[in-house]
Structures are given as structure tokens and as C-alpha cells.
């Protein structure tokens, strides 16, 4: 009984359609299913919201506009006015993360962002593109980013290496922050759900108010983590554009 009811069972990636391409396993899994679902629901939402775009917005249209303006304000505040060019990718990242987090909160859903590989790929794409943007914009001056101002000359070689390691650890901490928060919330919910079963019919109602509270809190965390992921991306972009 206990071997099939681990709180981590919800994160198992199961293939739905088995496919393979020249020896590689490219099966359509429940993870891919939920990614596709979230992308399509986002596209559907924005298509419906802006179908009959008018100056006086309808409810759906104003929801879309509020989302857009919120992220735009956040980005301009933390990355400066130069970052306006890169708004599409920032907005896309925010929408993808938030919709994946929220799809994970649906019962029997699958939280795509609870897998480190998914968040790490997003983080590494952000990291590499930000580095390329910085090198393209500043050229060789970019490497002065690794030498903080006012470093004595005898400390400079050590400082450059330490700064390089601090820079390289950015995508790791960015991806683990999101994945760890999602894993922690889902495991907590599953464990509390297990308490209901263990307490039986008579006392089983006791954890239910707690589960309700934690569910609401997890929905809040899902949105907050998407926002934090976005704001950190903006900060990294701002660092790349301005170099300190």
C-alpha cells in the first residue's frame, strides 16, 4: 500500500504516446500535455480578450491589459527604459511560468515547473541571452563587470574568479527557487491529504480547513513565484544593459 502512495508520486512523468526518434525517447508525456495545454489556453485567453479590442475595455480585455501593464511597469522599474526592446520575452516567460504553476494547482493536474529540468532550461536560456546581449552591447567592456570598483590590484585576480562563480551560479539559484517552491507546496498538500485518509471517517474532517487554507496560499505562492522569476530576469537584464 505504502509504496504506491508516496507524496512524490505526483511528479512522475508518464508517457501518454510512445514515440522515438533515431534512438531518442521523445514520448508525449503528461508534462508535455500540460505544457501544450497551458500554451493553448494562454493563446485562447489573449485571442478572446483582444478579439474586439475597444478603447473602453471589456472585463477580459482589461484583465489582459492589467497583466501587460503590470509586467511592463515592473520591467521598466528594475531594468531601465533601455529594456523595452526585450519586453516580449519577459512577458512570455511570466505568462508561461504563471500558467504552468496555476495548472499544477488543479486537482489531478501536473505541475510542469516542479521539475528542475524545465525551470533550468528557462533559466539557462535567460542567462545565455542576457550574456550575449551584454557582450553585443558593451563588447570587451563587459568583462569589467567581473571587477568591482575600488578593488586593490593584488586582489584583482582572485576577485575576478569569485565574481565569475557568483555570475555562473545565477541560473542555478533562479531555477531551483521556482522548482523548490512548487515541490514544497505540492508535497505539503499531498501529506495533509494523507492525514485525512489516516484519520478515517470520524476524525478525517480535522485537516480539511488547513488544506483549504494551504491551497489558497499555494495559489498565492504560484503567482508570487512567477513574479519573482520575472523580476529576477529583469534584474539580470538590467545588469547586462547598464553594467552596475
Amino acid at each position, binding site marked *: 500500500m505504502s509504496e504506491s502512495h508516496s507524496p512524490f508520486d505526483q511528479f512522475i512523468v508518464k508517457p501518454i504516446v510512445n514515440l522515438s526518434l533515431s534512438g531518442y525517447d521523445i514520448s508525449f508525456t503528461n508534462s508535455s500535455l500540460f505544457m501544450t495545454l497551458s500554451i493553448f489556453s494562454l493563446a485562447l485567453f489573449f485571442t478572446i480578450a483582444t478579439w474586439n479590442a475597444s478603447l473602453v475595455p471589456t472585463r477580459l480585455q482589461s484583465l489582459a491589459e492589467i497583466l501587460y501593464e503590470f509586467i511592463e511597469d515592473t520591467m521598466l522599474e528594475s531594468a531601465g527604459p533601455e529594456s523595452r526592446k526585450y519586453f516580449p520575452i519577459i512577458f512570455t516567460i511570466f505568462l508561461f511560468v504563471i500558467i504552468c504553476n496555476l495548472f499544477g494547482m488543479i486537482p489531478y493536474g501536473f505541475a510542469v515547473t516542479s521539475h528542475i529540468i524545465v525551470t533550468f532550461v528557462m533559466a539557462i536560456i535567460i542567462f545565455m541571452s542576457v550574456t550575449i546581449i551584454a557582450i553585443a552591447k558593451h563588447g570587451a567592456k563587459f568583462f569589467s563587470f567581473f571587477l568591482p570598483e575600488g578593488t586593490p590590484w593584488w586582489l584583482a585576480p582572485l576577485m575576478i574568479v*569569485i565574481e565569475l562563480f*557568483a555570475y555562473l*551560479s*545565477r541560473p542555478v*539559484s533562479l531555477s*531551483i527557487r521556482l522548482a523548490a517552491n512548487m515541490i514544497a507546496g505540492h508535497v505539503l498538500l499531498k501529506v495533509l491529504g494523507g492525514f485525512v485518509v489516516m484519520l478515517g471517517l470520524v476524525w478525517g474532517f480535522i485537516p480539511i480547513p488547513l488544506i483549504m487554507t494551504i491551497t489558497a496560499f499555494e495559489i498565492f505562492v504560484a503567482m508570487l513565484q512567477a513574479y519573482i522569476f520575472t523580476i529576477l530576469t529583469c534584474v539580470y537584464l538590467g545588469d547586462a544593459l547598464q553594467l552596475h
Partner: protein
Amino acid sequence: MNSLDELTKKIESHTNTKKTKRTEKKAFTVSLELFAGVSVGSFIGYHFDKYLNCSPIFLIICLFLGAAGSFLNIYRSIEKQER
């Protein structure tokens, strides 16, 4: 006058609760940065060693450099939050 003092105290107590919440988040950030820095350092060190065939030397050096880098990140993030 009395009610004003009470109000000030109330506001102060609420600001204090907000501060403790922020401290919690800071603690998570600190542990995360430490883990990230050390893991990146040891990963790079391990692969340097594999490439150059000089087993534990670069692993040890890069582990400490990664830890130092994570301390730098922690210092920066706390400095930013204090401001």
C-alpha cells in the same frame, strides 16, 4: 492624544510583523544562494579534474571559490533588501 499614541504603536507593531516576514524570505534566499554557489563550483571543479586528470585539486579550489561567490551573492542581496 492618547488614541494617537495607540495608533502609532499599532502601526509600529504592524511594520514589525512585516519585517519578520521579510526576514524569512531572506533566510530562504541565503540558503538557496549558498547551495547554488557551492554546487556550481563543485560541478566546474569536477569537470576540470576529469579533463586534466588531476583528481581532487580543482574540485577543492573551485568548491571554495564557489562558496566565496555565493557569499558575495548573499551579501549583495541583503544589501539590496536593506536599502
